[in-house]
């Protein structure tokens, strides 16, 4: 079970290249027809280049072999993805190479309804571009419920 001693744990840095083809595929899969994702000339003229959709950075979670995520003991049968938040600090464009570092920033408990005591684990992933600028923060809240949840 996760506890306060997990706060501060850091995963290995993960490098990810932001690719226009992957952005296009992702935009299609969320049913977004915005030409900014499909037409490089339009994107260049309007916003300086092809930018990823707002939730695109979540693909990092499945990009590496899992080393990027700090190890926290959790029972996977009792785990839910509770919340996700993205902060955009500087523009990200196709062609950028981002380095992501994930850290456990908080662990706390709440007494819930049918699930008993729930443990919340908050992880922040900071993305830095090839110029060393911090461009985004992705913050995920994972909930470990008190009992196995009916899925």
């Amino acid at each position: 079970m996760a506890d306060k001693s997990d706060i501060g744990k850091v995963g290995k840095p993960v490098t990810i290249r932001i690719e226009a083809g992957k952005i296009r595929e992702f935009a299609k899969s969320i049913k977004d027809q915005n030409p900014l994702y499909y037409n490089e000339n339009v994107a260049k003229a309007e916003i300086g280049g092809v930018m990823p959709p707002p939730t695109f950075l979540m693909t990092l979670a499945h990009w590496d072999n899992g080393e990027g995520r700090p190890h926290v003991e959790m029972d996977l049968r009792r785990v839910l993805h509770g919340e996700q938040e993205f902060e955009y600090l500087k523009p990200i464009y196709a062609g950028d190479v981002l380095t992501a570092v994930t850290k456990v920033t908080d662990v706390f408990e709440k007494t819930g309804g049918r699930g008993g005591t729930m443990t919340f684990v908050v992880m922040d992933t900071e993305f830095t571009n090839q110029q060393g600028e911090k461009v985004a923060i992705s913050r995920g809240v994972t909930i470990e419920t008190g009992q196995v949840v009916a899925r």
Partner: protein
Amino acid sequence: MARKKLYFEDVKEGDELPSFTIENLTRTDFVKYAGSSGDFNPIHHDQTFAEVSGNPTVFAMGMMNAGVLSRLVSDYAGLENLRKYRVRFATRVWPGDSVTCRGKVTKKAVENGEKIIEGEIAALNQKGEVAIQGSFRAALPSRG
């Protein structure tokens, strides 16, 4: 193909974002999102695994629904103006469900020289149940 630009002066608190509905999400949609995101958790595409896990069938990834909902905000405020996007997962979305995305502006302010708007957003199924509740923050250009 110039987009309609949203200026700070055009917005007032309480304004509604233009809503839209995605009809009839399919298992194929879930599989497409699995491919584009890398989320191959079998609970979202494998009927046998879904049943063994106590579900009637597969269901959509929360982040897929969050992606569908994100268009509400990027179409309205402009992708390049977005500063924050936040979602909380509530009800699951099943094959055959429709998802309606809607939201409204809750705050308009000038902070540290930036012209900021904030709003609440939600994705609801065809029964009106909230699948995702969220919020956003954007910095808008000025006509001035």
